[in-house]
């Protein structure tokens, strides 16, 4: 895990230096700076040292002082900037995840139980649209229809102005409602299709026949025996999806003007702000690695056969 993070760190570093447009000193110095000024800035930022020395200094800072450096642009500590942005991203990702998990699973079950019915076809048709529609398009349409300032049916108040939960829980909720829904749609669509096909397969298993032969109600057979098996692969996908999103839900954050980590990373890339890019990439990698770990542990809980292997 540590090795993986180290590699991620190194590759980001390398890519940044190979990248032609990225001379942070030039960017910092402005358009009319003399070569001497640029050189001075370069020295002050330590950019004149060899690549490996810079990398070593950077690592040393992280390991010994938990110091991720200072933003080239704002000159504030990177860790503070990132941590400031984290609550918004977590709010968005976790809320959206709950929404898509619940709706995706519910739709998947209904579709599987009623398969080939009109309801199933309708729901799966919707899901196909949900999967196909890009988030930014859905987001803009949602804003156009429902936002309180420009919307035609202004039912989502404050949907374009993110409020932290600490200032006012109700306006936090209102401001995130549309983003949650928009973010959840494509995931819910994917999950419902996945669960549907899993469940249909599971319902053909011998142990489902056994459950029916015991005299259980069909409801119990489906929920307790069928879904229990069909949901296991979903958990894997869910963990990874959530991990990725916690590293920044870029498109949704941009469309809905949410100051999250994704936006921060995006802005930092535009400004060649290396310490910021490093930190956001590392954070994303960390979430994905942790999510993987959690998924593995969760899997062992869900499938007793895994525990003994």
């Amino acid at each position, binding site marked *: 895990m540590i090795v993986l993070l180290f590699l991620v760190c190194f590759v980001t570093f390398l890519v940044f230096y190979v990248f032609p447009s990225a001379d942070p000193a030039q960017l910092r110095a402005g358009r009319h700076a003399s070569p001497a000024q640029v050189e001075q800035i370069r020295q002050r930022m330590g950019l004149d040292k060899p690549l490996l020395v810079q990398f070593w200094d950077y690592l040393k800072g992280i390991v010994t002082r938990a110091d991720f450096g200072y933003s080239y642009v704002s000159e504030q500590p990177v860790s503070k900037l990132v941590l400031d942005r984290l609550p918004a991203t977590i709010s968005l990702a976790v809320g959206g995840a709950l929404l898509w998990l619940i709706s995706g699973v519910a739709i998947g079950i209904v579709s599987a139980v009623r398969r080939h019915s009109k309801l199933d076809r309708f729901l799966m048709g919707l899901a196909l649209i949900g999967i196909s529609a890009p988030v930014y398009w859905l987001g803009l349409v949602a804003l156009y229809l429902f936002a309180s300032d420009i919307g035609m049916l202004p039912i989502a108040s404050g949907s374009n102005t993110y409020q932290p939960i600490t200032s006012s829980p109700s306006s936090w909720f209102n401001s995130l409602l549309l983003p949650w829904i928009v973010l959840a749609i494509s995931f819910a669509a994917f999950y419902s299709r996945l669960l549907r096909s899993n469940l249909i397969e599971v319902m053909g298993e011998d142990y489902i026949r*056994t459950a029916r*032969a015991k005299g259980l109600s069909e409801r119990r057979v489906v929920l307790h025996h069928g879904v229990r098996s069909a949901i296991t692969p979903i958990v894997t996908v869910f963990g990874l999806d959530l991990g990725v999103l916690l590293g920044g839900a870029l498109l949704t954050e941009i469309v809905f003007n949410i100051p999250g980590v994704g936006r921060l990373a995006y802005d930092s890339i535009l400004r060649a702000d290396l310490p910021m890019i490093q930190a956001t990439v590392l954070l994303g990698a960390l979430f994905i690695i942790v999510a993987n770990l959690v998924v593995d542990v969760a899997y062992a809980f869900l499938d007793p056969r895994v525990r003994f292997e």
Partner: protein
Amino acid sequence: MSTSPLLDVRDLKVSFRTDDGLVEAVDGISYSLEQGRTLGIVGESGSGKTVSGLTLLGLTGSRRTEISGEALFDGTDLLALDEQQLRKVRGQGIAMIFQDPLSSLHPFYRVGAQIIEAIRAHQKVSKSAARARAIELLGMVGIPDPAGRVDAFPHEFSGGMRQRAMIAMALSNEPRLLIADEPTTALDVTVQAQILELLDRLQQQLGMAMIIITHDLGVVAETADQVAVMYGGRIIEQAESRELFDNPQHPYTWGLLRSVPRIDGGSGERLRPIPGRPPSLIGLPEGCAFAPRCVLANDACLHGRPRLESAGPDSHTAACVVGLDQRAKAWQATQQDLDDSAIKTAAGVSK
């Protein structure tokens, strides 16, 4: 013989509509079974024997299934029950165990929990009482250290123990009829014998009736009081077990008997498989379904389905249009292990 039978199946037909055509899986079978007795249903795969069992529990129902006939269980027609009423019968009146005990137990739940679930589906008892009962049942089916094993997962059991656990689950509500669908097919031969013994012992202990569905005449010989041989979705011979083995009347039954290895056969003796394949159940030909594979087949076999007719004592019936004495001669020749043309000659069948 005085009381009415526990199970009385009359002209049961089950067919499935598929994209390839109508599959007539069970094509008008009738049998009856009295309390405490065992019926063996024998046949090759695809003969309709499993479907006939599942149908009794209403487990073949779907929009693509057509079922007709009657199946009177204790006087109630199982085929006329709705889902709610069927649920009461399942597990409580009639229980069923299946071929592969690994795939038939839910892999994610503990064995004990699955038995407890079965108990509590029909009896209003506390969890702890159901658990105590589950341990008792596991002990009854011969699982060592049942109190320690009750919390094990199915994959921690051996094949034989899994089938024992399935049996424990099936017996948890003391059913009056147990349907065992190929209960020993997936097991080692030594374990097979143990499971059959166990079923035998439990049957006597609990006084229940049993249907054993199998392709293995050895299993039938060991357990069944009466036998029905199925071919192409129909019963083609039916008799008391002893009578069937002593005096088989249908050429297909002979074929089955001949293809079983015998311990008293010479070491050079070869098994004699029945030539050809079992028929597809889609669009069966008009005549006897076995005719294409039968040594004795003549023109009469190709016209009209033969009916079950009396062929021996104790309501022994067989569905074959070939004359009784011709069959008797052919069976004699068959027992002498002659080849097909010699059998034909002995029976006086022209080519």
